[in-house]
């Protein structure tokens, strides 16, 4: 599977539904984060000394897997000379696990804290978080569609990666540099 597999009927039309649904997801998360009263509490993953540490480390795990995502995607598209069957499998499952690692984090952020715009770091983080799930949803919905422009998946995947790294910088990196590398 590489970009030489091109059908003559390339069109952006099949991209419409994934983009619209992705946009709706992003907006819905933002509206929810803004409209509901933050509960100040959410069930999360046990084993950490507190929710901040839990979120910092799960996000770090997702960010590391996101790097695996970029490398395996480059291999799949022939940018890195590795042609093995396991590359696609690696890409699929590292992405899945990365996405699932982010769920308890986003849940805690949105349910417990909500979207906030008081401080630049927090505002950027809130907006990127909503954007990330929108782009990710669009990419998932675009994946099985045929006849999409060749740039579709690299652009959506690249945006998802960029958003996730931005999320990591505005949360985990802040936690590790402000409070310390704590579990």
């Amino acid at each position: 599977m590489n970009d030489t597999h091109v059908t003559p009927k390339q069109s952006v039309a099949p991209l419409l539904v994934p983009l619209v649904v992705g946009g709706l997801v992003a907006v819905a998360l933002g509206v929810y984060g803004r409209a509901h009263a933050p509960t100040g509490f959410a069930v999360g993953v046990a084993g950490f000394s507190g929710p901040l540490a839990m979120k910092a480390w799960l996000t770090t795990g997702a960010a590391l897997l996101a790097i695996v995502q970029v490398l395996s995607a480059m291999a799949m598209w022939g940018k890195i000379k590795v042609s093995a069957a396991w590359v696609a499998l690696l890409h699929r499952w590292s992405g899945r696990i990365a996405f699932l690692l982010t769920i308890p984090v986003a849940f805690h952020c949105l349910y417990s804290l909500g979207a906030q715009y008081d401080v630049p770091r927090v505002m950027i983080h809130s907006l990127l978080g909503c954007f990330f799930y929108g782009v990710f949803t669009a990419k998932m919905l675009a994946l099985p569609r045929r006849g999409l422009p060749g740039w579709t998946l690299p652009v959506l995947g690249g945006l998802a990666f960029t958003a996730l790294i931005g999320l990591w910088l505005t949360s985990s990196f802040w936690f590790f540099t402000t409070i310390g590398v704590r579990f």
Partner: protein
Amino acid sequence: MSRLGPMYTLAAGAVIAVALGAASLKAAPVIQQVAAQEDTSQTASSPAEASASATPEASETPTTPTPTTTGTATPADTTPKKADYAGVAQGNGGLVAIAVRNGKAVAYFCDGHIEAWLKGTAENNTITLEGRDSLITAALGGGRAQGRLQVGHAKWRFVAPVVKKPSGLYRATAIVRGAKIVGGWIVLPNGQEVGRVAIGGNGEPAPQFTPGSPVDYYGIPLRPQDPDYFIDEVTP
């Protein structure tokens, strides 16, 4: 299969989010029950506490003025110069604590999930305090503060008796590499305790606090202090 794979991924994420939501809805307030405290047993745990509790003015002024001291000219304001109150918000189970010092008042409400710092005034045996999205009005007298508390859209009544150290309100602040950390704790004489620590837009239930000892917050030592130290510092 491969066409449905991405759908399974999205669905798995949604299922986990819903499961976390269901579990969170069931979670109870995080009021901790620690060993009940005797007013006299722990007062010597730190020099500051010992001196504060030894101060004679620590008790609330009686509500009925003694005729000998007030004179006959103008009715004196019998509002206590220094008093601490703590009690339960009825219908919520969260705790509320109020400290009055020379006409100023600070208050803290916390049920482990949400919290509010308030500041205001105490005069004519009435306290009025405002915080971010929160309001307290109460009457002082009879050894207690009795009034209403509003946080966001929620309103509760409360009756908060006078409490003495080590019970009452505590606050710890620290600035760590540019990030301000604010912790608040309320300790009741029956051993109930609640608190939260806020940092950079985040907040979480506070680690358990034993009056007189520092609290470890991700390795950062927080030193909760009594209202004498932060009465002018609270900015809701």
